[in-house]
């Protein structure tokens, strides 16, 4: 049996703290939770983070893959998780010294105590690079993908445009953009008119020429004559082709979509709350999901699609360009369709056990883990018997939107969408990276604690995860 050692780069002091005085193995969760609890003051909760897109960048995390030292002094909400993270994954059994972790260079290898490289400069240059790329006549997708995989800055509507390019909504030739957009947007409008009308309006349109329209206040008293109905269309019709019948059959799906949209990101004002803004956003989400369900009778609507839709809509609606923001619904619809085309197999129940289904994908993740870290794999699968389905299902089907806060998941999506082979490959690598990063805790834990850890993945520095995931590619 070939004993695959943990790869050297993983063993470097970067990822682990210097061994503290050997303490009898305490159950790992408590000290860690103590660490975690001390950190929330540093972690800015989502709502302010969401205001970020309007804030001027630079987000320094984009430069972090190249810097091994966490920038302790950086207060950008995005990277505050940095600070939190260094303690979380490094110190398995370190006691919490109570001080803000980012100023604790005692965390061994992350010699963050050294002066942090100027994040602003690096980041501004990245933004400039991307803008330059975007302003070309014909966009070089390979180059763009490379840039995007390192994370996109938040400002200037860059992310919205880049995602549209990556998902193939916008053609690479800039010249064609206006016409393409106009075409697609009018197509969406047409879809909505055709498919989202309620049966009353449909029947009304069917008989535009209908004559016997009595007016209540006008005309002389008399018996109202009955007229024929067209095509046997009446509300109680049980016919398969009846507009009414179809309408009632779809009510179940409509209600399901309603419920899920209400539950999407309740902590973010954009999506929930009583403001008209939130309500109109919810309406848009509902329209898109209903339309998708109608156009795809094979897959209809499955819970979770709303989570995949939310980041797209959020990005496009917050585009500083007015025209784009106004047509965000149409743009999101097509991009959503594109995104789903890669992942629809995960949502089809019948395919669960097939080669393309979710089970197969999960077992691929398992294999990937075995390849890179056999010890961890053995511990998880054999010793503690943590079936990957328990945690990976949500990771994979929802593209990690539920594991990290909203801002972080946008970063991850940058990398996922930029992969020329399709997001699935990168997704598996990122999941593998997530497992590897917390390997110390996993190895020390039993079934319960491991499951708890993986189902509530600790807040981590996103760029670090992406860095590790990238390294896995090389191996």
């Amino acid at each position, binding site marked *: 049996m070939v004993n695959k050692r943990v790869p050297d780069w993983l063993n470097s002091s970067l990822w682990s703290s210097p061994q503290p005085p050997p303490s009898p193995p305490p159950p790992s969760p408590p000290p860690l939770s103590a660490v975690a609890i001390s950190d929330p003051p540093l972690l800015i909760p989502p709502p302010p983070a969401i205001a970020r897109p309007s804030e001027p960048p630079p987000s320094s995390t984009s430069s972090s893959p190249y810097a091994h030292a966490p920038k302790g002094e950086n207060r950008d909400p995005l990277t505050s998780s940095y600070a939190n993270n260094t303690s979380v994954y490094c110190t398995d059994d370190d006691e919490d010294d109570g001080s803000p972790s980012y100023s604790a260079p005692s965390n061994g290898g992350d010699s963050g105590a050294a002066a942090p490289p100027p994040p602003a400069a690096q980041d501004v240059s990245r933004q400039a690079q991307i803008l330059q790329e975007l302003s070309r006549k014909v966009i070089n997708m390979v180059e763009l993908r490379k840039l995007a995989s390192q994370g996109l800055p938040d400002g200037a509507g860059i992310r919205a445009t880049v995602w549209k390019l990556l998902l193939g909504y916008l053609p690479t030739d800039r010249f064609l953009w206006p016409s393409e957009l106009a075409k697609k947007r009018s197509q969406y409008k047409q879809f909505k008119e055709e498919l989202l009308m309620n049966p009353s309006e449909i029947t009304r349109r069917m008989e535009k020429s209908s004559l016997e329209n009595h007016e209540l*206040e006008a005309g002389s008293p008399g*018996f*109202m004559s009955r007229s024929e109905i067209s095509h046997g269309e009446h509300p109680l019709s049980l016919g398969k082709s009846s507009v009414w019948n179809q309408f009632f059959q779809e009510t179940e799906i409509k209600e399901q979509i309603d419920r899920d949209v209400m539950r999407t990101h309740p902590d973010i004002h954009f999506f929930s709350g009583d403001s008209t803004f939130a309500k109109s956003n919810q309406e848009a989400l509902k329209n898109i999901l209903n339309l998708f369900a109608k156009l795809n009778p094979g897959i209809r609507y499955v819970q979770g699609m709303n989570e995949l839709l939310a980041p797209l809509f959020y990005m496009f609606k917050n585009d500083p360009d007015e025209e784009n923001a106004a047509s965000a619904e149409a743009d999101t619809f097509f991009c959503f369709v594109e995104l789903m085309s890669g992942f629809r197999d995960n949502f089809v129940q019948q395919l669960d056990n097939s080669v393309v289904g979710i089970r197969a994908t999960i077992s691929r993740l398992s294999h990937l883990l075995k390849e890179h870290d056999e010890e961890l794999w053995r511990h998880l699968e054999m010793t503690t018997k943590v079936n990957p389905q328990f945690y990976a299902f949500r990771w994979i089907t929802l593209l990690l939107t539920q594991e990290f806060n909203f801002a972080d998941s946008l970063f991850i999506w940058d990398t996922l969408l930029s992969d020329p082979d399709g997001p699935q490959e990168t997704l598996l690598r990122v999941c593998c990276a997530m497992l590897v990063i917390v390997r110390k805790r996993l190895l020390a834990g039993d079934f319960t604690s491991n499951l708890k850890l993986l189902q509530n993945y600790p807040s981590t520095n996103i760029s670090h995860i992406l860095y590790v995931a990238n390294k896995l590619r090389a191996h």
Partner: protein
Amino acid sequence: MVLVLALGDLHIPHRAPDLPAKFKSMLVPGKIQHVICTGNVSIKEVHDYLKTVCSDLHITRGEYDVDSRYPETKTLTIGQFKLGICHGHQVIPWGDLDSLAMLQRQLDVDILVTGHTHQFTAYKHEAGVVINPGSATGAFSSITYDVNPSFVLMDIDGLRVVVYVYELIDGEVKVDKIDFKKTTTS
């Protein structure tokens, strides 16, 4: 798009055993938002059945109703329309359109739904519209034995109402409609 079912004069079990099977198969719960019943259902079981079709049931008292707590008349507002319900045996002469128009003006409603004659009628006059859904079971009336089971489904959509008339003629369900609208909001 509000669907309102109007029916009445069922007379179950005295004059008819049950609704026609074809009607029953169409009255599936979940589609209809309101039920208006003119009266003479007669027994509680029928009342309960109507409640399963839709929980928002409005019913007035007919002379053969066992439950004496139903009101004589009732008014409700659905969308832009005011509807009034009365069984009709109180309005003399029975089925007389002018007298019903008087009742409609008293109740101040756009659409008055009455029964008792067991004949479908839809009549328009200055004060509004009178609709008689007939007898849903085809029970005989004091006036005639020859009754076709019928009921009415109204689709109230903004200022427009489409009245679908369901009639069982020779064992087949025939559906017609009547279209009317209001020009001013109430």
